[in-house]
């Protein structure tokens, strides 16, 4: 069992009387790759700023290896940050940017030089050593920012959407590069992202946040297969979230039909949220299906088609490789292992169907 390196305890932050983070508890273990995942404005950057020491919480404690560090200023914390917008020093060249931390520590020039070269090799930018940082592309600047933080030998590396500005291909490359840097150095990584795929593919632990509080902490598999509430189910991947009634263990009713499932331990005859992933639904003829509806749209996505189906006014999403036509009537077959049951949460009634993808859009459409 690895020991804790960063611990946040009952953190509360508010700006101008508006609560931004509330009752935040997080325990990060040494060497772990943790991802904070959540929609824009949910408080991810704020959480990182508390760990880095740029922001003092109104309430709560921060521990570094079980030592309280609330009052330790940022420049004395053994934590380095890769900022959302790089924040390279524009008056210094690549070499001096990477060397900055070591210069502050008054390391000898020979050591600095060796380290800078080593780290630039790691991020594939040695040939850029004398370049003016303003002349680099976004991706290169990003890698310099990573190199600059790594050169300081941090115990914990905080990465605030480090790949946000990169195109898809470079993003993938950088993801595996970061992953291998993590494995090589053994540094604890705390990554912020709003890209769920990135979170699932890179981390040991995913922390899903919304509106300033943590919704779920778990391994990528747990988060995906066993979301705790409608928000997590909706945010991680695509999912159909339907309100249902738990009739008995292994028995749930929704859409006017009874289904068998693998979940148990819920109160009998209680209201629950039922999650069904679009890729787990089988398309059949209307007669064969558990439920049936009319296709309202078919979108080609490359690997599969994304189909929206209107089942008595509720829009379901299905991902299938089969060809389907709009306005056709089809049946949906749902097997027990496709069903995941969750306790209702404040999100239950708010997470809509697939009339729209984002909440803003949905709320706008359903006004009045």
């Amino acid at each position, binding site marked *: 069992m690895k020991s804790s390196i960063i611990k946040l305890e009952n953190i509360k932050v508010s700006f101008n009387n508006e609560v931004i983070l509330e009752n935040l508890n997080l325990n990060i273990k040494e060497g772990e790759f943790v991802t904070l995942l959540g929609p824009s404005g949910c408080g991810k950057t704020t959480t990182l700023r508390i760990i880095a020491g*740029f922001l003092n919480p109104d309430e709560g404690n921060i521990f570094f290896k079980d030592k309280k560090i609330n009052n330790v200023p940022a420049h004395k914390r053994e934590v380095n940050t890769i900022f959302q917008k790089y*924040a390279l020093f524009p*008056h210094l060249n690549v070499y001096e940017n990477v060397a900055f931390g070591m210069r502050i520590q008054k390391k000898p020039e020979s050591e600095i030089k060796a380290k800078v070269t080593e780290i630039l090799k790691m991020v594939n930018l040695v040939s850029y050593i004398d370049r003016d940082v*303003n002349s680099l592309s976004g991706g290169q600047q990003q890698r310099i920012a990573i190199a600059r933080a790594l050169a300081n030998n941090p115990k914990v590396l905080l990465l605030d959407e480090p790949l946000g500005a990169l195109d898809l291909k470079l993003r993938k490359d950088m993801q595996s590069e970061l992953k291998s840097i993590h494995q090589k150095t053994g540094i604890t990584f705390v990554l912020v992202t709003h890209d769920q795929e990135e979170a699932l593919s890179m981390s040991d632990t995913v922390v899903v946040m919304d509106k300033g509080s943590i919704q779920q902490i778990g391994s990528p598999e747990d988060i995906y297969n066993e979301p705790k509430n409608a928000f997590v189910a909706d945010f991680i991947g695509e999912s159909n979230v339907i309100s249902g009634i738990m009739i008995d263990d292994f028995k749930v009713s929704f859409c006017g039909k009874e289904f068998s499932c693998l979940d148990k331990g819920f109160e009998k005859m209680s209201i629950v949220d039922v999650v069904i992933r679009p890729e787990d639904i089988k398309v059949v003829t209307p007669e064969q299906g558990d439920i049936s509806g009319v296709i309202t749209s078919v979108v080609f996505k490359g690997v599969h088609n994304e189909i929206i189906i209107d089942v008595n006014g509720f829009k379901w999403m299905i991902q299938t490789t089969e060809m389907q036509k709009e306005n056709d009537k089809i049946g949906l077959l749902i097997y027990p292992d496709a069903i995941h049951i969750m306790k209702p949460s404040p999100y239950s009634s708010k997470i809509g169907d697939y009339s729209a993808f984002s909440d803003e859009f949905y709320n706008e459409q359903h006004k009045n």
Partner: protein
Amino acid sequence: MKIKLSLVPYIIWMLIFVIIPVILIIYFSFTDINKSLSFDNILEAGKYSQVFLRSIIIGAISTVLCLIIGYPAAYLISKVKLKYQNFLIMLLMIPMWTSFLLRTYAWMTLLEYNGLINKLLVFLGLPRLNMINTPGAIILGMVYNFLPYMILPIYNILVKIDKKIIEAAQDLGANKFKVFTKIIFPLSLPGIISGITMVFVPSVSTFVISKMLGGGSILVIGDLIEMQFLGNNYNPYLGSCISLILMIIIMICMKIMNSLDTQSNYTEKRTKK
């Protein structure tokens, strides 16, 4: 080369108010009273090298004082809350709305032998100070008048420095002092350089301040030029020549400044975003 139509008014303006006068100055500089080509003016102007030197020294001292006072002022203003910043900048600008002459007259009445300050000293039983008509008074007048031109460009640069860059430096272990010496100061160099230029140029060439607070006893270039055009020894040829030399000196100074500036030029572009 095609010239855009919208540029025409500016080109005409430049022609009438900059190019033609400069050409005239150059022409007069190399002309003697008999309107024939000569280099006598340059030799004549050379006799006033003491005056040139004195002007440059007084200008330089004023500029340095403005920088020493202005930088911390700009820094402090950039640190307070935004609404106070606007208020402080207002305070700085308000005196500039009254005439420059009037403000210098005010200093005369303060510094005079029978002025307010000396009256106060006498009232307190202290000996009177001899303040007016000294180089010190001239420098005081210049610092007072030109200080805003130092503060404003530095302040403008300082407020534009990205907070994230400062946080990045702290993150890498820099304390407040290191953040200042390694980040804030180097990034504010373009502001310092334009501040120096904006103070040094008028300081070297002014004549009103030296005349009013120096009582005419301390001759600077500005006075010298004025004398050639308005005084008894009317000699616009020599006046033009001295002006030309002054212009060249200032251009050399600006060139030196700009060469320092180009080193930090990209910085400015970056922080302006």
